[in-house]
């Protein structure tokens, strides 16, 4: 091996005299060597950058924990002076600002009362809302969603037209955050944003809105009937459900027409809500149409009979259940057992006999 290597090495001085295939080989080797070196340098650089960023982040987090605790709980802490110092020395890079926002949100999530209010004020004093507003205009949906989230968590009000366009953003997450923003910052009519909503409410959005309405909004409950004529079916269904959840008995007459709605999901929601509101005339309205309804609605009608009716109402249904519709028959028998607990044995025997005849 050694003599060959020496020969090859000696040959570098006569590179021009080499065979062309050897020249190409050497050039390719050098090219890949260079590429490998570049790649290794890039990976090391990236790693170094990540580590520096991580240590800066940690440093800022530790600094903030001390700063925020002193700000909140230390009576000797010179607030104005320290805030100015912090702003001047520790809010210079995007990383520092992002970590600060994250930490304030983290504190705010765990604290309530005076401390939470003080954090909201601190956020404004550090002018972090200015940064958040810049984030809103970025093209990344997650930057926008995060910015709106921060504003709504800290209930920081910004001009309506800054957030309103996001109510109809193509991304569900952005729409959800803007809906929660309007709800959490509302003094009255927390669902007014529904008037501007042009995209259907997803199930998750409905859950979040309902939860926020219960936990964050302190004013009087709005009249949910104002959205019963909304152009979006999902909003109509949501409003029907909320009328029942908030026991708005005064809206019963407005719900009744929805029992005849062309859309099955709306009809089901109307039956459920009127049942929850214990509307006595509901059975008289739904039983006559039982036969022409589909399976899901028939099941809802049976549930309604169980909750609001009696055995006589149930018997009105019996001839309307098809002989081979075992799913409904089982449901029917279960309700019959519920109404006549003393006749359970007899009902069981009759149903078995009926089944045998069918087979």
């Amino acid at each position, binding site marked *: 091996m050694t003599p060959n290597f020496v020969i090859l090495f000696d040959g570098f001085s006569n590179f021009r005299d080499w065979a062309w295939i050897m020249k190409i080989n050497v050039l390719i080797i050098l090219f890949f060597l260079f590429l490998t070196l570049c790649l290794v340098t890039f990976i090391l650089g990236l790693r170094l950058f990540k580590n520096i960023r991580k240590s800066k982040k940690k440093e800022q987090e530790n600094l903030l*924990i001390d700063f925020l*605790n002193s700000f909140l*709980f230390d009576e000797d802490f010179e607030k104005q002076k320290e805030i100015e110092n912090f702003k001047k020395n520790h809010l210079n890079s995007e990383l520092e600002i992002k970590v600060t926002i994250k930490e304030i949100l983290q504190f*705010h999530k765990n604290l309530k009362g005076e*401390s939470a209010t003080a954090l909201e004020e601190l956020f404004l004093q550090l002018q972090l809302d200015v940064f958040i507003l810049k984030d809103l205009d970025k093209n990344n949906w997650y930057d926008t969603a995060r910015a709106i989230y921060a504003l709504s968590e800290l209930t920081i009000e910004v001009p309506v037209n800054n957030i309103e366009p996001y109510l109809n953003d193509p991304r569900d997450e952005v729409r959800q955050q803007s809906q929660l923003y309007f709800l959490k910052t509302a003094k009255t009519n927390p669902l007014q944003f529904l008037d501007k909503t042009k995209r259907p409410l997803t199930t998750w959005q409905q859950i979040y809105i309902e939860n926020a309405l219960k936990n964050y909004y302190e004013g009087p409950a709005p009249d949910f009937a104002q959205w019963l004529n909304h152009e979006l079916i999902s909003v109509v269904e949501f409003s029907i459900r909320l009328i029942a959840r908030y026991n708005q008995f005064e809206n019963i007459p407005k719900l009744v027409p929805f029992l005849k709605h062309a859309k099955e999901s709306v009809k089901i929601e109307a039956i459920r809500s009127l049942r929850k509101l214990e509307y006595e005339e509901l059975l008289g309205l739904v039983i006559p149409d039982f036969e022409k309804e589909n399976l899901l609605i028939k099941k809802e009608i049976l549930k309604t009979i169980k909750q609001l009716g009696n055995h006589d109402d149930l018997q009105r249904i019996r001839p309307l259940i098809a002989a081979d519709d075992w799913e409904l028959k089982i449901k029917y028998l279960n309700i019959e057992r519920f109404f006549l607990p003393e006749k359970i044995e007899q009902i069981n025997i009759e149903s078995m006999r009926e089944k045998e005849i069918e087979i």
Partner: protein
Amino acid sequence: MKKILVIEDNPMVIKSLEFKLTKDGHEVLIAKDGREAMKFLKEANFDLILTDLMLPFVTGKELISYIKKNLPKTPIIVLSTSTQENIIMDAFNMGVDDFITKPFSPNELSLRVKRFLNKA
């Protein structure tokens, strides 16, 4: 100076509790999980225990049972994110003295701690 054991795994909450309670003039010891808490409880006496329910290694419930069995006179305050009625009822049935839900008000917590320590 009264000695308080804080059993909590959220670094932010730990720092705030430590800061606030130390500022109030108490000696504060921190255990970041149930196992560490057990170790402290075997080594020293505390005037009050402030604990979370969801803890690594040894759960808050197991810890409360241990404290009630071995240190029945030490008051326990639970600080938890749980707002479910059955969990709160269970904790009181196990003998905890107070239950504070997160998010919590540090001033309110400070007053409750003071009340228990004055009683003791």
